[in-house]
């Protein structure tokens, strides 16, 4: 295993990368610094040091406190601050990428330096490449906020560099806000709330459209800086992410818990225990993944239940149909219409 697993107790976030930006935003919105930091292991003097870090748990605590500020713009402004953070070589490198594909590859590879709590799976459809955003570990009540943040970050990036953000499509799991007018100006594209998946639909033609600010030399220089940072901040992935990516890779065959554990280099009982600590289980993760994929495939409206069943590793369509009903409470045909 080249990539280490991290959990909530890992000190894997540099304060300068995201935490200070969040704290500044919250303070300008009337939050009190010592109340925000109360109970966390972040101290005020750490904030000015360039290499101090915090636990992933503290990041979630801070996000939870900032969510209570009644400022619906916060995830969007925070995404803006992350994308233009001068202390973060990764975000400096992104505008210099040759095209969207190069930019997203860079963001994907170094994502632990910006948002370690989120990972993506890519699906292809006729018109779109679909990025499925998923939590890399248990994010608790902050999951909606973090996925909204990641989605806003991607959409802003694409809108700014291609100018064609209106061609995107966004699906979010979170419930529709009470006043859509408050945030509608932040989404250049149609957004549907209360969906079964968090997904970003990017049209194929945007992927290799050259970017105006592309600069090969600077891009390389920034990438070198990112690699150097990797020495201090090694690549780590959340447990959910590692397991779900393994499951995704072996689909349609089903990867048993024992096989997954041996891939991670530990016993199945310790994987079970680690998952239990995060309030989840191996079967739940597998179901979650299959449910998301089934939803995406159904929305394309091309495949029959039989084909879906074989793609997702079910023995026949009846089993698939029954499982789908268990996940969503609906029969597969209810989703088969193209999403409006």
């Amino acid at each position: 295993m080249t990539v280490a697993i991290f959990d909530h107790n890992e000190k894997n976030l540099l304060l300068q990368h995201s935490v200070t930006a969040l704290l500044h935003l919250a303070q300008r919105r009337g939050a009190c610094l010592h109340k925000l930091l109360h109970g966390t292991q972040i101290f005020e003097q750490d904030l000015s040091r360039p290499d101090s870090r915090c636990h992933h748990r503290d990041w979630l605590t801070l996000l939870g406190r900032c969510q209570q500020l009644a400022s619906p713009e916060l995830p969007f402004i925070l995404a803006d601050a992350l994308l233009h953070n001068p202390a973060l070589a990764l975000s400096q490198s992104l505008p210099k990428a040759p095209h969207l594909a190069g930019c997203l590859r860079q963001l994907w590879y170094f994502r632990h330096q910006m948002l370690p709590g989120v990972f993506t799976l890519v699906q292809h459809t006729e018109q779109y490449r679909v990025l499925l955003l998923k939590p890399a570990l248990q994010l608790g009540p902050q999951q909606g906020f973090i996925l909204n943040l990641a989605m806003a970050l991607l959409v802003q990036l694409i809108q700014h560099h291609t100018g064609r953000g209106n061609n995107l499509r966004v699906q979010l799991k979170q419930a529709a806000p009470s006043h859509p007018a408050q945030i509608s100006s932040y989404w250049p594209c149609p957004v549907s709330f209360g969906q079964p998946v968090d997904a970003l639909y990017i049209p194929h033609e945007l992927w290799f459209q050259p970017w105006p600010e592309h600069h090969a030399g600077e891009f390389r220089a920034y990438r070198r800086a990112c690699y150097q940072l990797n020495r201090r901040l090694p690549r780590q992935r959340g447990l959910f992410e590692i397991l779900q990516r393994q499951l995704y890779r072996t689909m349609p065959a089903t990867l048993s818990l024992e096989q997954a554990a041996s891939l991670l280099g530990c016993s199945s009982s310790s994987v079970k225990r680690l998952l239990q600590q995060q309030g989840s289980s191996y079967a739940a993760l597998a179901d979650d993944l299959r449910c998301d994929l089934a939803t995406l495939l159904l929305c394309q409206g091309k495949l029959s239940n039989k084909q879906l069943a074989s793609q997702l590793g079910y023995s026949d369509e009846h089993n698939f149909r029954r499982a789908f009903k268990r996940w969503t409470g609906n029969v597969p045909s209810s989703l088969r219409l193209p999403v409006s």
Partner: protein
Amino acid sequence: MWQQHLDKLTLAAVLLLAALLLALQLGDVKSWAAIDWLDILGEGIVLAVALSWLTLNLLNRPAGRVTDWLYYGSLLLSCSFALDLLDEFLRYPAHVRTMSWLESVPAPLGMLALTYGLMGWHQEQRQINRQLRGRERFLRDHRLLDPLTQLYGLDYLYAVLNRELALHQQQRLPLSILMLDIDQFAAFNRQHGTAAGDNYLISLAELLSSQMRESDVICRYAGDRFVAVLVHTEQAAAEIIALHLQQQLQRLTAAGQTLHCSVACIQATQTQATAVLKQAELALRASKLRGARPVYQPGHGNL
């Protein structure tokens, strides 16, 4: 208030009169020397207090369950005390027990009824306090304030606008909406950082509050968009205010630049806040198109 209690007042008067007649019928007047004036003073005061409870209750409270209990309680007490006072003047024959019964039985019953009524009053007041608190929250809740600009947010805007629209429609007065949007704010944020953007929003909110009239309600509509509800204002007057605002905004600089803002105003014709705001958004888009500014060029300072 007392008009709705006429029947209760009449009943009280009739009862007291009946008690007086009954007492006069049964007893005969004492001789002057046998009257104890000190007793009369004490019992007179007690009767006066009971009667004042009765009248205060009926003067101040609307009809209802709690009022009834308080009324019957104080009525029974008054009757009992009135008979008590009367027997200082009259002597009843020893074999008639009616008067002594009538004197002593209603007093404790009245006390009980009064206490029960007071308990009801306590509960009623708690409910009213809760209701009042709810109404206050609706009108002045700090949680409806936008934490950054300290202006009211969308919840408040919808509530106020719906109420004002209904009121203005009723009185046939004009109501205008002014919508202001910062042009190229996302680009400004990108170039100068979110801190500069936030500071600009704060100073813009301060400028709006100082330059608009006292009666205008200013709210933060979305990230870089503000709405003012101009009460008793016609379109022409609103446009003068908008022009004045545009001039004042020229003085507002952020990071060495003056940002351009688009302003649109409309006179409300619909009755729903959402419809009116949609109309204002359309007007704003039209005014943006009319005064299409050059595209933001970082570093040129042409905004």
